[in-house]
């Protein structure tokens, strides 16, 4: 991990843009259940260049915000985002190289895992769980991964991402 290679301010700016997109652009896009999750993308991008503890804290904060906005099962979002943030940071430090496609795919997989956690902790029934995990969650993961690809290509210098495939 090379957190010092990119300017922290630039990264913060990107994260702020993602937050704004989450709350201002996402409601205007097509189906809200399959639109990219910009905040989650910001969390993963932050986790990929942070230590696992800080990533877990960031995930916890994102989870708090998620639970506050959709309090169907308070605490489920916190736990899911905490675990995903921590594991993303830890796994990236252990396994991943700075590859753009791998990073984008990792975002998609992480989102699907986040949804799995939230659905399991939220106590969803079998049928909704199956539908969410096989239809909506993969579509949202694909959309988020595609947007992650765009973000990484646009801000690769700031995130210290290599473009080799």
């Amino acid at each position, binding site marked *: 991990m090379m957190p010092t290679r990119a300017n922290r301010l630039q990264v913060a700016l990107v994260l702020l843009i993602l937050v704004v997109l989450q709350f201002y652009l996402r409601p205007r896009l097509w189906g809200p259940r399959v639109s990219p999750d910009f905040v989650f993308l910001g969390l993963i991008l932050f986790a990929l260049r942070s230590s696992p503890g800080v990533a*877990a804290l960031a995930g916890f904060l994102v*989870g708090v*915000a998620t639970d*506050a906005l959709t309090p169907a099962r*308070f605490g489920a979002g916190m736990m899911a985002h905490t675990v995903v943030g921590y594991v993303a940071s830890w796994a990236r430090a252990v396994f991943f190289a700075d590859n753009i496609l791998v990073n984008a795919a990792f975002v998609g997989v992480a989102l699907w895992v986040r949804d799995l956690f939230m659905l399991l902790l939220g106590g969803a029934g079998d049928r909704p769980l199956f539908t969410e995990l096989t239809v909506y969650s993969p579509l949202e993961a694909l959309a988020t991964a595609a947007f992650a690809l765009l973000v990484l290509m646009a801000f690769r210098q700031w995130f210290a991402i290599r473009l080799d495939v």
Partner: protein
Amino acid sequence: MASASDRSYTRRDTVLFLVCLALSIVGLVVPPGIGLSVADTLRETALAPLVWLQARAQEGRTSRERFRELTAQRDSSAYLAQGLPSLLAENERLRQLLSLSRRLSSAYVAAEVLHQSQATDGRTLLLSAGSSQGVSPFDPVVAPEGLIGVVLSTGARTSIAMTWAHPEFRVSAFTVTGNAAGVVAPSLSATTGEGALEFRGVPYRDSVPAGSLVLSSGLGGVYPKGIPVGTVTGLVREQAGWERVYRLLPAANPGSVGHVLILVAPPSSDLAKAFPSDSLLEALRLDSLLRARRADSLAQAAREVAAARRDSIARARRRAAARDSAAPPAGAPTATPAPAQAPPAPKPSPAAQTPAPVRRDSARGDSIR
């Protein structure tokens, strides 16, 4: 082997993770009421700007959809508004045609004009009625406003009409006042324009004032008498002191007509009554109003008479019932005592004391029976 700083780094991460995980578990196990109140507090404080941003976005989306709906409604309204005047005009023309068909005393066939895109459309018209409907060549074609032309040829279901704009069109005509007669032909000169008619062959001694209505005269055996052809708008030329030629504003426009009537009966009758002038139409309208009012007054009188009859019947029945109750019972002597010897009758009611109504009621009762 990890260094001391790496170990502390890992330890710090683990602690952070465990703390966050513990807090998450606490969030999961707390009663839902507490969780909801915490969520409310967060939404009202830290997340308020984000919620506000999302609300604006949602408003924008709603406004955009509303704008699209309004635009679609406006476009639909504009489209309907565009078609409304033409619909009203067509409706008015159909009413006029219906009115004309009622006034016509001779047989006719209604036909639609199938306008074509050619430049010569208006000189000849394709009509939607043919020989199978009884149309034959040289049948006059009229519109509510006046003469359109004559049938030139017929097919089984369609026919071709030569309108007054055709260069070969001629109709014998006279002014409605009867002081001048001549032949109406299309004007082909550049000065008068192609959309006008000429009233030719008017004797030099006869002058026709502008505004005079020119009707078909019935001469020639093609057009019945009395069909409006046009209105005199001015003098075109005078020839050698023996003829005047007047310009006519045509009564009917073949280019815009949509429905016509083809007169299939022999041109023997006078159709002037079928094409009343504006003043005559007004008089007809007033006459129909008067007739309607008269009918209303007659109906009112009939209602009053019926009510009076009902009243008189009721009174007669009441009087008959009173007589029956005053009559002696069965078994009593049949001889009617003299009025002077009769026992004193019960005091009659004031109405029974009045002699005149008694006579009238009995008379009406007889008449009813």
